[in-house]
């Protein structure tokens, strides 16, 4: 036996195990296996699979593999419960969410221990981070339920939400998913990850304890096949997925054209940028919180340290010293920093990736880890940007270190990734921090901190890290629908462009040539062909037959027009006002053009007048569509900034040749995007007339690019283009499906509607919804205190 005298000599910490008997007793009572939680009750266990404790390999429970039939039963229950749940007053739903929050707190240690048993994460984290954040999320959304009608007037729930969550924060991800869904009046079918379903099942019991109405929350367990059955189910209105980018891409393709709303929170390879004037000890501790938190199995983990060359050696020395004090081992020991990797399959993946990195020249510096499903904290140096360790999400306690020379160098390394989930910036220079924060392409930026979370701020990514936000006002928005316009008569596909001479005869006066408009220049189509534009009675002219090379050139030009997004709102407003002024000066010409397409005199005049008003409306919005400062943690400013997406591709509806063009292009450029637009395929000449207005209104080259031609062919090239960040498509159902499916390549944000549904002449033709689609929210966390 170790005596106190011995300990006085060693001053070791000794064992400090968390008692797991209550959680194990609960599992013992369920040793017959868990069924699904459907319609307020547990089903009988079906075909089960084993859930194990990764730290010991011991079996914890048997859990049912959900079938398509199980999913169908759950969706039916959710569908049945939804109208009544949505019809409750917000206050009533708030009471349920409040009760769930309270009961999570009351069962906090039970849930924390169960989570650590199931997932392998240290009890410190499940106890101090995961479960308190679960309760916080439920409280916060009890608030949104209460305030829904006041804060989101006119919004409606989406319906039945299918939610598929990962294994890294099992109960927290459940809370992130169900809290906004239930607050908004949706009902839920949720599938926890197959490695870690236990706290979700415990939560189902808590829902029963709270008296949550049956069918509102349904939990179906199973593997990826069960998830696929949820994604594919026709009775689901929205899919929310958190997990790998690979699966996110599959879901994007699978749901294309289904009309399901979709939010994806996917992978990351987040940069952790340390400048020479940073508090280096603070940054080292930041690395601990970034990559040695939750065994590095964190989507927003700061996995790429970029450090100023001037301090790189010192930083590495400090980091290695800190790494040596990390304790890897029993997740239930209160002195453990790093617990078990969630599953041997994941451990193999980590080992494999690190092995490949070493083969490519990486040098490893590692701590120690016990035998079993554990991996030591690992620092990899000598990692070049092309190395697999720098590009692939490892999802393990492995961080790379790369020196940089200048802030510009740091920025290009930081943005040299497919992903855009998070970033961490370390410097005592506020100018530098905010400059870099504004330029890194990521949804969450932590300045002098990392992995700080709060329900009051949105969380979600740019680029291939997905779209949609969770938390805060922006997260609530993702579970609410504004009644979308519908039409009885969907837009029919236009006839294929005829690129042969027409028999319509020569128009009066001097011939006018409509070209494409790319990079601020009138450009002949690459194809060398033109197609006939029909008017009300006969052909009225020719338009260029654009092809994929024209799109390529237009996107390149749009991508270079970066100054536009950096210009301030007032500058953009001036240009938009000027557009209105110059359009007004040419109003008769545009009216005549519209009449040539068959519009009546009054309708043509009204369409032009509306277009002029829209110039003013979006000019007015250019400096007013603001972000917010979120209430999160004390002594933190959390700035939610609306940022442009970048390059947006726009395929315009066939009708309203001028308004369909102006109403989509203006909101996009007013927010600082540049656009590549395919105007009405049938009547593109109003848009090509418009480039003369653009030219006289100081719109910088490349901000608006116009490519006329076959809409769906051109839209497909845009949807596939990796430099295009957003794609708006107003057209046929088939075209919409194509756009959504093709957008999966870089997971660009899409906005797809029937081209005939929206009344472009009325209130539906402009509004904040356009601005919301034209922006993404970046949350910048700035702690303060001296």
């Amino acid at each position, binding site marked *: 036996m*170790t*005596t*106190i*005298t011995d*300990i*006085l*000599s*060693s*001053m*070791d*910490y*000794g*064992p*400090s195990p968390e008692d797991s008997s209550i959680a194990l007793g609960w599992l013992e009572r369920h040793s017959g296996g868990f069924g699904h939680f459907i319609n307020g009750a547990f089903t009988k266990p079906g075909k089960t699979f084993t859930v194990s404790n990764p730290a010991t390999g011991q079996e914890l429970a048997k859990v049912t593999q959900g079938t398509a039939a199980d999913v169908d039963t759950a969706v039916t229950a959710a569908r049945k419960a939804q109208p009544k749940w949505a019809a409750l007053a917000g206050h009533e739903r708030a009471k349920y969410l409040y009760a769930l929050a309270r009961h999570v707190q009351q069962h906090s240690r039970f849930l924390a221990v169960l989570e650590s048993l199931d997932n392998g994460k240290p009890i*410190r984290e499940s106890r*101090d981070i995961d479960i308190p954040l679960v309760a916080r999320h439920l409280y916060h959304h009890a608030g949104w339920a209460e305030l829904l009608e006041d804060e989101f007037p006119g919004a409606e729930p989406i319906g039945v939400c299918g939610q598929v969550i990962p294994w890294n924060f099992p109960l927290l991800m459940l809370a992130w998913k169900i809290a906004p869904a239930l607050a908004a009046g949706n009902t839920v079918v949720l599938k926890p990850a197959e490695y870690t379903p236990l706290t979700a099942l415990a939560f189902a019991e808590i829902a029963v304890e709270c008296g949550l109405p049956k069918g509102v929350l349904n939990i179906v367990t199973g593997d990826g096949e069960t998830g696929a059955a949820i994604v594919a189910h026709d009775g689901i209105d929205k899919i929310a997925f958190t997990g790998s980018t690979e699966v996110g891409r599959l879901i994007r393709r699978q749901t294309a054209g289904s009309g399901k709303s979709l939010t994806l929170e996917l992978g990351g390879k987040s940069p952790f940028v340390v400048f020479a*004037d*940073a*508090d*280096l*000890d*603070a*940054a080292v*501790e*930041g690395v601990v*919180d970034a990559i040695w938190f939750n065994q590095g199995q964190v989507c927003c983990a700061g996995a790429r340290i970029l450090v100023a060359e001037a301090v790189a050696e010192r930083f590495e020395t400090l980091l290695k010293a800190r790494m040596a*004090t990390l304790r890897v081992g029993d997740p239930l020991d*209160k*002195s453990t*920093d790093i617990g078990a990797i969630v599953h041997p399959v994941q451990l193999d993946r980590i080992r494999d990736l690190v092995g490949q990195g070493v083969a490519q020249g990486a040098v490893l510096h590692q701590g120690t880890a016990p035998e079993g499903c554990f991996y030591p904290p690992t620092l990899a140096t000598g990692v070049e940007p092309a190395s697999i360790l720098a590009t692939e999400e490892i999802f393990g306690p492995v961080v790379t270190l790369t020196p940089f020379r200048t802030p510009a160098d740091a920025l290009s390394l930081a943005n040299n990734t497919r992903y855009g989930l998070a970033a961490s910036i370390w410097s*005592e220079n506020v100018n530098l921090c905010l400059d870099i924060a504004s330029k890194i392409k990521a949804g969450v930026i932590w300045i*002098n*901190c990392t992995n700080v979370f709060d329900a009051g701020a949105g969380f979600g990514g740019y680029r291939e890290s997905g779209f949609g936000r969770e938390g805060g006002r922006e997260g609530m928005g993702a579970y609410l629908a504004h009644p979308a316009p519908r039409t009885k008569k969907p837009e029919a596909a236009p006839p294929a462009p005829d690129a042969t001479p027409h028999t319509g005869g020569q128009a009066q006066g001097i011939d006018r040539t409509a070209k494409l408009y790319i990079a601020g220049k009138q450009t002949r189509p690459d194809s060398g062909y033109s197609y006939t534009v029909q008017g009300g009675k006969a052909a009225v002219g020719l338009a260029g037959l654009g092809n994929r090379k024209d799109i390529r050139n237009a996107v390149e030009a749009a991508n270079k027009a970066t100054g536009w997004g950096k210009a301030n709102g007032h500058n953009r407003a001036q240009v938009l006002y000027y557009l209105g002024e110059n359009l007004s000066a040419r109003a008769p010409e545009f009216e005549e053009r519209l009449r040539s397409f068959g519009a009546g005199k009054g309708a043509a005049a009204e369409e032009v007048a509306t277009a002029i008003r829209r110039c003013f409306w979006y000019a007015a919005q250019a400096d007013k569509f603001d972000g917010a400062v979120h209430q999160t943690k004390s*002594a933190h400013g959390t700035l939610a900034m609306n940022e442009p997406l970048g390059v947006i591709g726009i395929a315009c509806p066939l009708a309203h040749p001028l308004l369909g063009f102006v109403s989509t292009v203006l909101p996009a450029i007013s927010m600082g995007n540049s656009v590549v637009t395919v105007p009405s395929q049938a009547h593109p000449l109003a848009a090509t007339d418009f480039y003369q207005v653009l030219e006289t209104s100081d719109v910088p080259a490349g901000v608006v690019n116009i490519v006329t031609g076959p809409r769906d062919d051109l839209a497909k090239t845009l949807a596939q283009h990796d430099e295009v960040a957003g794609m708006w498509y107003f057209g046929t159902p088939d075209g919409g499906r194509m756009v959504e499916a093709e957008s999966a390549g870089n997971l660009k944000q899409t906005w797809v509607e029937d081209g005939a549904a929206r009344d472009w002449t009325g209130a539906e033709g402009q509004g904040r919804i356009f601005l919301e689609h034209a922006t993404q929210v970046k949350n910048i966390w700035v*702690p*303060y*205190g*001296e």
Partner: protein
Amino acid sequence: MAVDVKAPIQGKTHPVPARTGAGHERNPGMPLTPEMFESHALNRSAAERRTATLAARRSVKKAYQAAWLVNALRCIDLTTLAGDDTAARVRRLCAKARNPLAPHIKEGLGLGDMPLTTGAVCVYPTMVNHAARALEGSGIPVASVATGFPTGLMPLNLRLEEIRYAVAEGADEIDIVITREHVLTANWQALYDEICAMREACGPAHLKAILATGDLQTLRNTYAASMVAMQAGADFIKTSTGKESVNATLPVSLVMIRALRDYGAVTGYRIGFKPAGGMKSAKEALTWQILMKEELGRDWLNPDLFRFGASSMLGDIERQLEHHVTGRYASSSRHAIA
């Protein structure tokens, strides 16, 4: 930095009582080198985050907890610095310093034969003589505050004379206070010269430099003052007098111990650390020790490199240790007071 990096001197476990710096070569100081601190960045939010999670990251239970509390006890500078101090009061304090635990507790912990005392006794200069006599033969060092404690706003010659007086009375350690003005006006040369002079006045007695971090306010000031004190030859750096409105805090302590780590990395000399003021509970004794072990390693849990300026903590530690021995929650009325 144009300073040779020396290998750190290896420490070892010391028997109690141990004088400050007992196990290693004394810090001789070095020329004033502002580049070691002037551009050193410090982020308070990060320091607060680190210290807030520290106690949750490590846990000591059962026998380990008891041992850690015993260790804390032998690092305590048992202190009385009050206007109503008398010879009898000091003798009582010294008696407690010699026997900080009731015999049955010590026995119950299996420490019957182990010499167990507090780290030192700390008093005003005029009380040093009483303390030295009361502690004779115990090996327990006598520490004296000096230099116009607690504000230090006295002419330098008088402050130096006060040091020489205390040393002559028998003090082994001198807890000096710095002139806060020199820090607030960034007059590093004046601060350095003053502490060098104090170090010289101390002679063989060890110098513990009280920075009064509650007055310095910022972490940058704290780091700079720590570094200047060490460059001027301080053996220990200490947070507070106990008389400022804010005394020992974990974020300030974190910055000071990282300063002494950095000084050691450059010079090879080991400097001790003493948080003082405001710490009362046994739980805090554990937290501070965890801080030392995590940031500096096991050697900084020895009384030659770590001291608590916290007298009332002793009572709570004794109660917790009795609970460990008997399984019953204890009452301080059954323990001897200091």
